[in-house]
């Protein structure tokens, strides 16, 4: 079964440093997403991306966050200057359909620890 692959599985970074989280979505999917889950809390939407543009973003996704599809297979989330409160599990997801929430496949996540 096709998978969404995320790397690294765990990243530790110092406060103020930039981090890039990487994802390889399912190959025929057109829509890509980032969600985060602070330990023990609910999964929260960050951003959706289609056709090389952000299609929707949450209030969490401020100027310190950016997304990019640098080539035909990777999808990245960059956090420019990390804060302690950015510590969370970050999930990438992809879907063929762009609206309605259908057909999401989530990756296994990157645990980001900011120290």
């Amino acid at each position: 079964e096709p998978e969404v692959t995320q790397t690294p599985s765990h990243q530790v970074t110092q406060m103020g440093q930039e981090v890039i989280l990487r994802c390889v979505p399912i190959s025929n999917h057109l829509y890509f997403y980032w969600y985060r889950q602070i330990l023990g809390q609910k999964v929260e939407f960050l951003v959706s991306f289609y056709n090389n543009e952000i299609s929707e973003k949450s209030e969490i996704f401020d100027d310190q966050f950016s997304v990019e599809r640098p080539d035909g297979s990777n999808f990245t989330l960059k956090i420019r200057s990390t804060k302690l409160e950015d510590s969370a599990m970050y999930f990438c997801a992809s879907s063929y359909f762009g609206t309605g929430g259908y057909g999401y496949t989530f990756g296994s996540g990157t645990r980001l620890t900011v120290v």
Partner: protein
Amino acid sequence: QQQVKQSPQSLIVQKGGISIINCAYENTAFDYFPWYQQFPGKGPALLIAIRPDVSEKKEGRFTISFNKSAKQFSLHIMDSQPGDSATYFCAASTDTASKLTFGTGTRLQVTL
């Protein structure tokens, strides 16, 4: 109004018992209600989903019951097994948005 409220926070059920998790929403524009199962260290995986034009959907041991007038929906796991021990999230979305709005999660433990 965008929230999805989920209860209970945690649940312990004996093997063979019925697990019931409830969710409630306010936004009447929501029209797709999936349930996700998450094992430790893994991402959420779609378990079962329902649209509001039906009141119940069953897939194997898993059933969603949907009450549109009460704006509530629930997941029933029949004959619960230790392998069902996981965190379960309800979610909702509208047909015009790309995002899923998740509930707060229920940690289910099925004991022998």
